[in-house]
C-alpha cells in the first residue's frame, strides 16, 4: 500500500458526513425492537391462570354446592366436620382414603376438625339440643334422628371431613367389629349404619385387618348415588357391546416381482369394514384400563381384474379387387385369417370374515362423573378367519365362490385410537371410539412372499352396562 492509499484510508475511515438526524430517526423509530416475548408470556401466563382458577371454582361449587343444598333441606341437621378445602384437589380419592385410614389407625392424631366433631358430639350427649343430634343425611343415610353416636366413635372413626360423606361408605360389618372391640357390647346398640350397596365396586386397600375397605365413592358426595362410569379395579362385570363401520386401504408388500406387486396394488381396492363385538374392562391403575373381548369383523375388498384374450380368426371375405382394361371392377373372394384381442375387466368382491380377540390398554386423560376421554392402543389376536367372494364373469353373470382361507391373519394386528364414554343413567353408558388398525394377511395358498396390508379406520358405537 503506497502513501496515497494510506492517506485515503486514514481520511476515509475518520470522515463523517452530516446527517438529517430527525428525519432519519422518524424513519427508524418504528423498527426499534420491543419486548414482544414478555407480552406473549404474560398473556399465556394469564390465560393458563384464568383457566385454572375457573376450573377449580367450577369443580368446587359443582361438587359442594349440591351437598350444601341437599343438607340445607333438613333444618335440624347437625353439622359435623368442616368442609376441608384440602380435599378439593384432584387427588381427592387418595386424600379421602388416606383420611379414612387415619381415622381408623391414628386416632391419636386427632386434628382440630375431629376435635371439633368430638366436642360437638360430646355436647350432643350432654344436652338434649336437637341441633346436635345425628340424623338421616341427604344421601339416604339411615341413621335416624334420635340415634346418638358416642364421642369415642367420632374420635376413632371419623376423618377430618364431612360426616355425611364418610358415614355411608363405612362397611357395616367393619364398623360393628370396631365398635365391639373398642366400645364394648353396650355400644353396639348404636351400630345402625348405612350399608353401602356399592361397596363391592370400591377399591380394596391392602390391609389384612379390614374385611372390606372403606372407599369413598367420589360421586356419592354429590348427594345422589351416582356410580362412576369407570370400572372398578376389582370388578370385571361390566359389559361393553359395540358395533361400527369403517374404511379400509389395501397395499401389498414384500413381493419379489415388483410389476406384479404394482398390478396387485392397482387392482385391489379396500372397501368397508364392519365389526361387532363385546368386551369387558378393568381398571389397573389410576388412569389406566385394560379391555379384553371378542370381535367379529367383515372386511370387503374389490378386485378389478383386467385380462386380454387373443383368439385366431378365419373368415371368408374380399381379398382382392381387379379392374380390367375395360374398366370393369371384379371382386375376388377368399379366406382371411388373423387374431382378435378381447380385453375384459371382471370385478371380484372378496369378503374376509374373522373372529378376533382384541386387547387394548386405555389411558384416560380426561374424566369426570359423566364423561371419560381416553386414548387407546393394543393388538388383535386372530382366532378364526374365512374368505368368500363373488365376481362377474365374462358374460356379466354374478358368480359366487368360497375358498377355505386363502389368506390368514397370522400376524398380530396393531391398533390405536381414541374413545369417549358418556354415562347416561345409573348403569349404562354410551361408548364411542375411532380407531386405526393395521391388519396383515399372509397369502398361504399358494405360498408366496406377499403380504396384504389392510389399514382400517373405523368408528364404533357401543353400550356399556354395569352389573
Amino acid at each position: 500500500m503506497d502513501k496515497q492509499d494510506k492517506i485515503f484510508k486514514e481520511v476515509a475511515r475518520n470522515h463523517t458526513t452530516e446527517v438529517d438526524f430527525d428525519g432519519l430517526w422518524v424513519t427508524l423509530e418504528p423498527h426499534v425492537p420491543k419486548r414482544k416475548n414478555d407480552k406473549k408470556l404474560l398473556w399465556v401466563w394469564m390465560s393458563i391462570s384464568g383457566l385454572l382458577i375457573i376450573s377449580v371454582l367450577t369443580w368446587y361449587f359443582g361438587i359442594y354446592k349440591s351437598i350444601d343444598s341437599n343438607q340445607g333441606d333438613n333444618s335440624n341437621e347437625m353439622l359435623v366436620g368442616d368442609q376441608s378445602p384440602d380435599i378439593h384437589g384432584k387427588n381427592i380419592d387418595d386424600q379421602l382414603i388416606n383420611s379414612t385410614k387415619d381415622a381408623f389407625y391414628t386416632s391419636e392424631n386427632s386434628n382440630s376438625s375431629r376435635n371439633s366433631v368430638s366436642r360437638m358430639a360430646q355436647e350432643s350427649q350432654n344436652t338434649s339440643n336437637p341441633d346436635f343430634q345425628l340424623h338421616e343425611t341427604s344421601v339416604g343415610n339411615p341413621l335416624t334422628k334420635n340415634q346418638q353416636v358416642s364421642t369415642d366413635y367420632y374420635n376413632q372413626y371419623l376423618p377430618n371431613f364431612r360426616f355425611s360423606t364418610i358415614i355411608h361408605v363405612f362397611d357395616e360389618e367393619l364398623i360393628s367389629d370396631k365398635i365391639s372391640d373398642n366400645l364394648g357390647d353396650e355400644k353396639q346398640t348404636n351400630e345402625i349404619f348405612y350399608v353401602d350397596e356399592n361397596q363391592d365396586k370400591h377399591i380394596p386397600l391392602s390391609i389384612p385387618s379390614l374385611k372390606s375397605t372403606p372407599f369413598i365413592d367420589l360421586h356419592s358426595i354429590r348427594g345422589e348415588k351416582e356410580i362412576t362410569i369407570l370400572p372398578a379395579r376389582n370388578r370385571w362385570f361390566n359389559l361393553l357391546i359395540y358395533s361400527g363401520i369403517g374404511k379400509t386401504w389395501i397395499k401389498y408388500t414384500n413381493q419379489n416381482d415388483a410389476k406384479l406387486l404394482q398390478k396387485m396394488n392397482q387392482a385391489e381396492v379396500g372397501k368397508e369394514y364392519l365389526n361387532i363385538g363385546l368386551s369387558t374392562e378393568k381398571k389397573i391403575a389410576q388412569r389406566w384400563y385394560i379391555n379384553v373381548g371378542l370381535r367379529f369383523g367383515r372386511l370387503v375388498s374389490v378386485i378389478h381384474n383386467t385380462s386380454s384374450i387373443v383368439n385366431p380368426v378365419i373368415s371368408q371375405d374380399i381379398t382382392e379387387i381387379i379392374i380390367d382394361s375395360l374398366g370393369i371392377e371384379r371382386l375376388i373372394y377368399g379366406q382371411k385369417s388373423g387374431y382378435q384381442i378381447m380385453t375384459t375387466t371382471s370385478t371380484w368382491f372378496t369378503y374376509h370374515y374373522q373372529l378376533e380377540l382384541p386387547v387394548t390398554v386405555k389411558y384416560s386423560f380426561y374424566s369426570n362423573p359423566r364423561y371419560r376421554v381416553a386414548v387407546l392402543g393394543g393388538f388383535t389376536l386372530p382366532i378364526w378367519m374365512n374368505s368368500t367372494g363373488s365376481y362377474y364373469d365374462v358374460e356379466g353373470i354374478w358368480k359366487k365362490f368360497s375358498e377355505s382361507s386363502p389368506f390368514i391373519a397370522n400376524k398380530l394386528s396393531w391398533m390405536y385410537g381414541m374413545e369417549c364414554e358418556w354415562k347416561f343413567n345409573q348403569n349404562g353408558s354410551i361408548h364411542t371410539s375411532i380407531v386405526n388398525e393395521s391388519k396383515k394377511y399372509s397369502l398361504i395358498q399358494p405360498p408366496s412372499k406377499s403380504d396384504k396390508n389392510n389399514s382400517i379406520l373405523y368408528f364404533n358405537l357401543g353400550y356399556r352396562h354395569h352389573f
Partner: protein
Amino acid sequence: MTESNIIMKCKAYDKAAFKELVRVYSPGLMSVCKRYMGNKYDAEDMLQETFIKVFQNIMTYEETGSFRAWLNKIAATTCLKEIRKNYLIADLEIDEMEADMGADYIVLNDETGIMKIIEELQMPYRLVFNLFVIEGFSHQEISLLLGVGESTSRTQLSRARKMIKELVLKYNVQLIA
C-alpha cells in the same frame, strides 16, 4: 452515554439508547455508505437499511471487537448487496490492464476533496478501491465478494489509482500524510 452503555441499554430494549446509537454513529456510517454508493440519496437509503440491520442484530453482538468496525462492516455489506443487485457482475469485469501508477503524486491536503474523489470514481473502480484500500480486503477476498477474478480486481485497483491521480490534479487536492 458511553459506547458500552449504549450497547448494554440497546440490548435491554431501551428506546433512548437506540436513538443515541443513531445519533452518535450515523455520521460515520453515512460517510461509509456515501463512499460505496457515490451519491447522497442512495447513501441515505443504505444508512437506513444499515441501522435496521443493526437494530435486528445488536442482541447478537459480542463486545469482543470494535463496535464501530462492526457497524462499518454492516454498512459495507449492505451497500455491497445493493450494488450487486443493481449492477451486473459483467459490468465489474473490465479486462483492461493498466500499469501501476507508482509513488509519484502531488502532496496536498483536503479531506473534503479526498472524499469527493472517492465518490467520483466510476463504480467498479470505486468498489474495489474501497474494499482494498479502505476496508483492507485482499484481492482474493474481493474476488469472492464480487464474483470476479483476482486479476480483474488488481486491474481495477490500478485503474482506480490512476483515476484518483487525475482527480487529485483536477481538484487540486493536497495529500499530506
